[in-house]
């Protein structure tokens, strides 16, 4: 029907380009249209029809429209459509045989439906015009000779490798189009940009035919679990769990985190909107050092269709390292003592302190040996970079030499350390920080004035960012935590600061009667590290004014200082881009190796010692990256499913530069348990981005005719006239008919 009225199919319009064959200039068209308008207007005025008002205007506009359409037809509109030359092109029919295609629908399994649709008239029609090649894919692409051999047994769906393989074949074959029969349940998060670029370079349209229900009723699914890959022993980490449900709105479900048989946390969830993605953040205590498998599960609900998508495992490495923090304080004060006490309660942190007790004496605590810091604040990179964090208390900027100031900047920027500034009568604006090298490192802009430190009471209040932050989480429950902060004893003192810098996060604000409101705790990223400001030295009252059992003060300081150092790397940073490798054991080991000054170590020997399940143990050599100094990498294939721990050791000559560890996990056969609904959105997007179209299975007849419009393979361009479209004549007829009807109705016009 569409073709009868418009001379071409919708696909031709979709693929074709509009042209006007007359080639006359458009200014002629505009001039002619204007002349017609003037003539019609003048005629009406002459006959005295202007007095009829809008009726005359409407009739004149209809006449002008008809004239414009006729004029446009003189310019000869046409469509240039690329189409495949018959019998000279290959059409690839690619069928997904992953396990999700084995899900039973009303008319058999998805793969049975696909095979049935293909093997009918569709295949014969295609074969009458093109060479047809059949492929199956799940993890990779393979040609097949007959549809009967295909079974839904693939353990994963990976669209990208399959499409890349087709694009590669197009180098030697005239591939005119790809037709993908799938449910779109890709396990890799979609089609990567490289694959899309390869298809677009060869102008291969990917038509997609979607199978399976677009929504599965009565199901709860874990759609994502985000956990940090490393943590310090005994620390709390944030787990962000995403899930969605259908058929259970208003019900509750239980979310459980376990490490082996030990339950780490549970949370009751309220299931909301149908199909809406929900998210919940849960705090977990990670326990002792070691490699762990954190099992995340949603307890199955009665009548749930698929319970296999309620469970997943994430690897977590609880490191045995104990970061050291250097705290330099300019005067004896209570905050110093109580910070030390709070950290002493934390077995994962070590605090080394330098306190200026008198003008010329420094009292050192927590030092590794009597020589450490004997000369005062470090002035060599290897001395300062031995620490992971740095706290600068009430010390005036002038106490540090320019070289030390630059070293502190490098400590954060290059070494990746954490730096915390505290308020004090010699600190921040009072200590001349606003005009020193510290100004750049601070997460706030300091006022350029004195008398900013006050020994007056101030209260602390969490900001929205602070409510989300782990640093400020004294109580597990966010709302209770917010209320708890409101009840904390007032601070003994505070210091005025300016506004937070762009990108900095104000976690806590202070309210001081008679003074106003200022940022109290502000954090930011700086270079490879992070800096923070706490605009008080009076949190010690939280300890002295609250019962002994209350641990607010300890919790706050331990969390703040863990944040300060937990992401501070050592000389060797190792990782893998795929902490969970689904079904395919291929993993890449990466290591960044730096020397004592944290400059790239380009002449290191780097080994990865891999320990895995069932006695897997091997050593893998990492090779230097020729493009980037200090980067080493290796590809490796994990032979068995399970958790692996990799310890990377870097050496230079006989000496060890450093070592680091990470974990990853190979999961076999679980990816297909997730995303079992047809992912129509992905398929539509893939088709749109490659110039193809999305079809439902019953629309395959249309696909047979549409598939010929393609610029890939061996194609030609055909010009189709549009001036003689029946739709145009009908339109003209409609306009003139409307004019006639109006004239009859209004009589005198």
């Amino acid at each position: 029907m569409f073709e009868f009225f418009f001379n071409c199919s919708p696909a031709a319009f979709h693929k074709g380009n509009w042209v006007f064959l007359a080639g006359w200039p458009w200014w002629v068209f505009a001039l002619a249209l204007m002349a017609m308008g003037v003539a019609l207007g003048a005629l009406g005025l002459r006959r005295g029809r202007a007095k009829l008002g809008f009726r005359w205007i409407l009739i004149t506009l209809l006449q002008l429209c008809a004239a414009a359409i006729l004029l446009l037809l003189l310019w000869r509109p046409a469509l240039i459509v690329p189409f495949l030359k018959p019998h000279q092109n290959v059409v690839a029919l690619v069928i997904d045989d992953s396990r999700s295609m084995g899900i039973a629908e009303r008319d058999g399994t998805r793969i049975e439906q696909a095979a049935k649709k293909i093997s009918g008239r569709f295949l014969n029609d295609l074969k009458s015009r093109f060479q047809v090649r059949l492929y199956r894919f799940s993890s990779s692409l393979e040609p097949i000779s007959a549809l009967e051999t295909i079974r839904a047994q693939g353990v994963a769906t990976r669209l990208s490798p399959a499409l890349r393989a087709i694009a590669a074949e197009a180098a030697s074959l005239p591939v005119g189009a790809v037709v993908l029969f799938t449910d779109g349940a890709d396990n890799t998060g979609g089609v990567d940009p490289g694959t899309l670029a390869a298809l677009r370079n060869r102008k291969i349209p990917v038509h997609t035919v979607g199978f399976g229900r677009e929504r599965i009723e009565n199901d709860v699914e874990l759609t994502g679990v985000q956990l940090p890959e490393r943590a310090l022993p005994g620390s709390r980490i944030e787990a962000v769990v995403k899930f969605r449900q259908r058929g259970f709105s208003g019900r509750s479900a239980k979310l459980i985190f376990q490490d082996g048989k030990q339950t780490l946390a549970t949370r009751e969830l309220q299931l909301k909107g149908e199909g809406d993605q929900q998210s919940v953040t849960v705090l977990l205590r990670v326990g002792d050092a070691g490699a762990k498998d954190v099992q995340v599960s949603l307890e199955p609900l009665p009548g749930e269709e698929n319970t296999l998508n309620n469970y997943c495992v994430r690897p977590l490495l609880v490191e045995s390292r104990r970061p050291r923090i250097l705290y330099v304080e300019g005067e004896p004060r209570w905050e110093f003592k109580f910070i030390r006490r709070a950290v002493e309660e934390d077995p994962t942190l070590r605090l080394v302190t330098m306190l200026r007790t008198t003008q010329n004496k420094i009292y050192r605590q927590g030092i590794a040996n009597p020589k450490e810091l004997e000369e005062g604040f470090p002035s060599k990179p290897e001395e300062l970079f031995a620490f992971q964090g740095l706290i600068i208390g009430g010390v005036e900027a002038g106490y540090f030499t320019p070289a030390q100031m630059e070293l502190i900047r490098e400590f954060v920027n290059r070494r990746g350390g954490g730096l915390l500034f505290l308020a004090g009568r010699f600190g921040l604006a009072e200590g001349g920080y606003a005009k020193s090298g510290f100004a750049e490192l601070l997460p706030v802009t300091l006022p350029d004035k004195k008398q900013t430190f006050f020994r007056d009471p101030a209260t602390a209040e969490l900001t929205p960012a602070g409510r989300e932050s782990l640093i400020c989480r004294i109580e597990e429950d966010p709302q209770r935590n917010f209320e708890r902060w409101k009840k904390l004893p007032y601070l003994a003192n505070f210091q005025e600061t300016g506004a937070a810098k762009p990108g900095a996060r104000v976690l806590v604000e202070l309210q001081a009667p008679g003074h106003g409101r200022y940022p109290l705790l502000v954090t930011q990223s700086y270079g490879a590290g992070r800096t923070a400001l706490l605009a008080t030295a009076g949190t010690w009252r939280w300890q002295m004014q609250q019962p002994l059992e209350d641990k607010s003060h300890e919790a706050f300081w331990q969390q703040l200082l863990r944040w300060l150092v937990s992401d501070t790397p050592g000389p060797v940073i190792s990782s893998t881009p795929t902490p969970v490798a689904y079904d395919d054991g291929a993993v890449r080991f990466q290591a960044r190796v730096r020397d004592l000054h944290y400059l790239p170590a380009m002449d290191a020997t780097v080994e990865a010692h891999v320990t895995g399940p069932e006695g897997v143990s091997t050593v893998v050599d990492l090779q230097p990256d020729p493009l980037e100094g200090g980067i080493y990498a290796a590809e490796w294939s994990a032979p068995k499913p399970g958790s692996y721990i990799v310890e990377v050791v870097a050496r230079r000559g006989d000496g060890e530069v450093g070592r680091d560890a990470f974990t990853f996990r190979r999961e076999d056969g679980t990816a297909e348990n997730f995303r079992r609904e047809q992912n129509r959105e992905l398929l539509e997007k893939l088709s749109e981005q490659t110039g193809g179209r999305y079809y439902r299975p019953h629309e395959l007849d249309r696909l047979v005719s549409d598939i010929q419009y393609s610029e890939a393979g061996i194609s030609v361009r055909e010009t189709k006239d549009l001036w003689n479209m029946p739709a145009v004549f009908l339109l003209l007829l409609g306009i003139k008919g409307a004019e006639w009807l109006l004239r009859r109705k209004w009589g005198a016009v």
Partner: protein
Amino acid sequence: MYLRSLILATALLILLLSAGIAFQRGGRFPFREDDEGPLALPPDANEKTEWAFARLRYPQYRGEGLGRWWSARGHWTVDYPKADRTFVQGVRRLTRIHARSVEQVVDLDSDEIFNWPWIYAVEVGHWDLTDAQCKKLREYLLRGGFLMTDDFHGTFEWEVFTASMKRVFPDRPIVDIENSDAIFHVLYDLDERFQVPGIYPLMRGMTYEYDGIEPKWRAIYDDKGRIMVAICHNMDLGDAWEWADHPEYPERYASLAYRIGINYIIYAMTH
């Protein structure tokens, strides 16, 4: 009846004479200034500072009569306020501690004490804490407070002191502080310590009082090995602070008293 009246009148006369003698100022002592009269407040008396000399006011031992002058005024006031203010001048001059020029009197009956993490108690051989006060002192010390005691002597006063202290910490022993403890090295190295006498025994040519011949530096520690209560027994650091500005009080005693006091404060602010 007559005899009874005579005895009563004689007793009253003796009492009045005793009080009169006790309240005599100067007289036979070379120390012209005293430690009981009010001193003019320095101009910066109201300055808000990090640290102040917090003097503990406590109820005294009930078995004691009014036979001693200090019993009438309260033993917690001994050397007050001159010792406090003289000592603070030294703290200000010798350290970077932001110290207030005048003392702060605190007690164990309100929560105000939790604003002062270092407190000083003098003549604790005469104190007698109530159960509520013992409980509050225990809580104060365990939260992080620090108590320095001074100027009590001999066996009897020790027993009075420990009678209350045992009710504060029934399960924590009082031990001698080792020479190697940080409290003797945090600022000054105090390996060589000696008895610091009060002015009265010093005038008699002695350095000790009662049977307190040997000076003892003792302490009660918390579970992490930090001193909570620093006990200076058989010495009188308070007098040494108070009379440090007097030419006839030996410098060596005053100097040691200052060093001990400053070390104890800095220890309390670092441990």
